[in-house]
């Protein structure tokens, strides 16, 4: 209720909200306080933002190793863990010895970690954004305007850092503005007209890791265990869905309806435990199993269970293989990832029924992805090229039987090709361009029919996305560090095709101006 009131206030004060974005941008630009990406990581490592990020949350080679090592790397001005934590530095020293990454990062001064103060690795972030679409959005939009909306959403809090010398976590809790999500609503007779399980506070991306190192003959291993709640959130590269570009999106602009299961369909609805290893800093292997959380557990964590397509019947296996050779200032990755899931769809999710029953039949999804990334570190810039392709084979035993799908089997493909240049150390300017294409089998029941031709629509959407972002603090440490960071982005999305048709596709073209604050 309070959130809605605040939202309406913002809506009424649309110009004020835009001004707020501008003010934040100006303050950020002219402020002298340096910052890092997730400030708690910076406090722990003693490193500036640019050590781990080319453009947060996009990772550098060192940033990937920090994550690989379970967020436990120490060396900062504060004690690494609440426990005796010199061992955490020993782990990192061992890893640096193995990899030679100490050359790229200044070694921390030899200070006894236990003599430092421990500060809980808690951070927060907020995104304030202004969204304009090429055409007004159809009614009803209340409490939003048909166009030109300013929304402060989402707001997140994090635990980001070491717990012990071998265990660390990235755990996010998010507040979603009720104006930007379909919250619960009730008819005049008190009957629910939308899901009562939509919450403003919800757990978000979470990845808890244990990591260690070993040496067998000429093979060096970093090995670990990950427990997380979103397939690919644990991945080290920004080519997989959870951490892929765009890093900030408008919560009020229309987006293509179709996506593969691995592209977030079960984010925060599942729990997964997996094992991974990096061999000789070259070959990354991982296997993780996912299972949907019980209905009550999802609801208790703030996740609307009906936000997922159903419940997973068995443990869904996820795999990841990546080969990352690096030479000089160049880093290349070629990899594959994927998941198999058996989804039992909800039998009846009409709000008035509250039925938590699922179909005994399952829809089976086989997602196979391929990705590649090339990174070059210049003297004062980064160049990153990324590509990913996901092919999803859908055997819709349940949806076909219930006539939710016209075809018993469908294909869905997702392609992203991206180039990014990050210029500068501090006052970093990041230019990113991406081509995206989603295409698949036409299905009248899943995607509807063309009103003109009567033919079944496809899930096809494609277009381009460009973004210019300004990050004031990339490499320096001065007064105020490491407590604050910011990213100002101007994003434009152009649709050539949207949800199966080119007719009025450009109406969904979106301009998103946003200020992303982390503290």
């Amino acid at each position: 209720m309070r959130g809605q009131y605040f939202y309406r206030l913002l809506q009424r004060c649309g110009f004020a909200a835009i001004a707020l974005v501008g003010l934040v941008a100006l303050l950020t630009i002219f402020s002298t306080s340096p910052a890092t990406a997730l400030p708690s990581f910076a406090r722990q490592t003693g490193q500036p933002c640019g050590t781990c990020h080319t453009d947060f949350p996009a990772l550098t080679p060192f940033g990937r190793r920090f994550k690989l090592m379970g967020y436990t790397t120490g060396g900062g001005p504060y004690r690494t863990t609440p426990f005796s934590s010199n061992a955490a530095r020993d782990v990192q020293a061992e890893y640096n010895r193995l990899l030679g990454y100490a050359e790229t990062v200044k070694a921390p001064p030899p200070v006894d970690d236990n003599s430092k103060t421990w500060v809980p690795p808690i951070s927060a972030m907020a995104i304030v954004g202004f969204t304009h679409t090429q055409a007004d959005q159809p009614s009803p939009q209340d409490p939003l305007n048909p166009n030109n909306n300013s929304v402060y959403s989402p707001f997140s809090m994090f635990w980001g850092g070491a717990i012990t010398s071998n265990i660390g976590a990235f755990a996010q809790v998010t507040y979603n503005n009720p104006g930007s999500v379909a919250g619960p609503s009730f008819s005049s007779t008190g009957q629910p007209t939308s899901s009562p399980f939509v919450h403003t506070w919800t757990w978000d991306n979470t990845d808890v890791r244990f990591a260690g190192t070993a040496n067998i003959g000429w093979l060096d291993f970093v090995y670990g265990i990950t427990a997380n709640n979103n397939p690919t959130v644990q991945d080290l590269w920004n080519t997989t869905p959870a951490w892929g570009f765009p890093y900030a999106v408008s919560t009020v602009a229309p987006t293509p309806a179709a996506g593969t299961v691995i592209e977030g369909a079960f984010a925060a609805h599942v729990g997964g435990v997996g094992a991974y290893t990096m061999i000789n800093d070259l070959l990354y292997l991982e296997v993780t199993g996912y299972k949907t959380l019980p209905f009550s557990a999802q609801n208790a964590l703030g996740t609307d269970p009906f936000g997922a397509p159903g419940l997973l019947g068995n443990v869904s296996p996820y795999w990841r293989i990546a080969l990352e050779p690096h030479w000089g200032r160049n880093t290349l990755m070629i990899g594959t990832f994927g998941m198999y899931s058996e989804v039992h769809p909800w039998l009846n999710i009409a709000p008035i029924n509250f039925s938590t029953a699922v179909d005994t039949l399952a829809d089976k999804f086989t997602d196979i992805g391929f990705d590649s990334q090339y990174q070059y570190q210049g003297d004062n810039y980064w160049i990153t090229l990324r590509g990913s392709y996901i092919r999803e084979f859908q055997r819709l035993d349940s949806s076909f039987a219930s006539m939710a799908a016209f075809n018993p089997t469908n294909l869905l493909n997702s392609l992203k090709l991206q180039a990014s240049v990050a210029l500068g150390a501090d006052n970093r300017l990041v230019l990113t361009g991406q081509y995206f294409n989603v295409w698949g089998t036409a299905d009248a029941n899943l995607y509807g029919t063309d009103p003109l031709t009567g033919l079944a629509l496809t899930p096809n959407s494609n277009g381009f996305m460009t973004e210019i972002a300004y990050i004031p603090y990339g490499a320096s440490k001065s007064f105020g560090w490491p407590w604050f960071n910011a990213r100002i982005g101007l994003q434009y999305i152009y649709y050539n095709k949207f949800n199966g048709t080119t007719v009025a596709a450009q109406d969904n073209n979106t301009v998103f101006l946003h200020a992303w604050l982390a503290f």
Partner: protein
Amino acid sequence: MKKLIVANLLALTLAGQAIAADLPTQAAPPIAQRFNWTGCYAGMHLGGGFANKNITDPVFLVQDTLIAPGTTTGVTTVSPQPSGVVLGAQIGCDYEFASSVVIGVEGAVSGSTMRGTRVVGLPGSPGDSALVQVNTDFLPSLTARIGYAFDNVLLYARGGAALAGDQFEISGTLTGIGPYDFRGLDNRFGWVVGGGVDWAFSRDWSAFVEYDYYQFGSTNVLMTDQISGLSGLVNYSQHVQVVKGGVNFHVWWPGL
């Protein structure tokens, strides 16, 4: 100063003599370093694919679904033989034993243009026929390989699991009923065996030619008429042969 210069010159001369004295009187013949297959690699391949598919029974599907149950007598099998280009990529890792035996694993994925058609008559609707079209557009595999290295030439055999992404379409027009267009998709798991020769023509690069035989057995695929919404099963079996060549870029384990 003059003494210092002379002393330095003398020192240089003596040093030069000492170095010269260390040199062998005759250069030793160079020892060629054996190519070491231990490491990982990534690369691309290009080739041709030739499939044989037996589809049973498209006539029954069309006639008994759209005309009336019981229209079809007998069983009809059609055998399109799709062929086309195979293009893809692979990553893998090998280990070479001192005995020159090499073992490894490889993951490969290919996109394919393999496509084949057959026309089959419909006795239940005299004069009408159905066009049966089969595509295979996706062919990934995960295999183990074993080989023997003759220095920089590796003869190998491989075997493992494979998957084929198949698309089926049976279309035409039935007199008195109208057009029909049955479509179905299948992801079919099977196995693959093959062999080839890999030639390392530089420290980092190798080129290979390879033959693979894929067998995917027999299964049913559910097909739906895109016009009427009616569905029915056809059975199909298939095997695929692929001849391909490609290059790999080898990444060496640090320390080797």
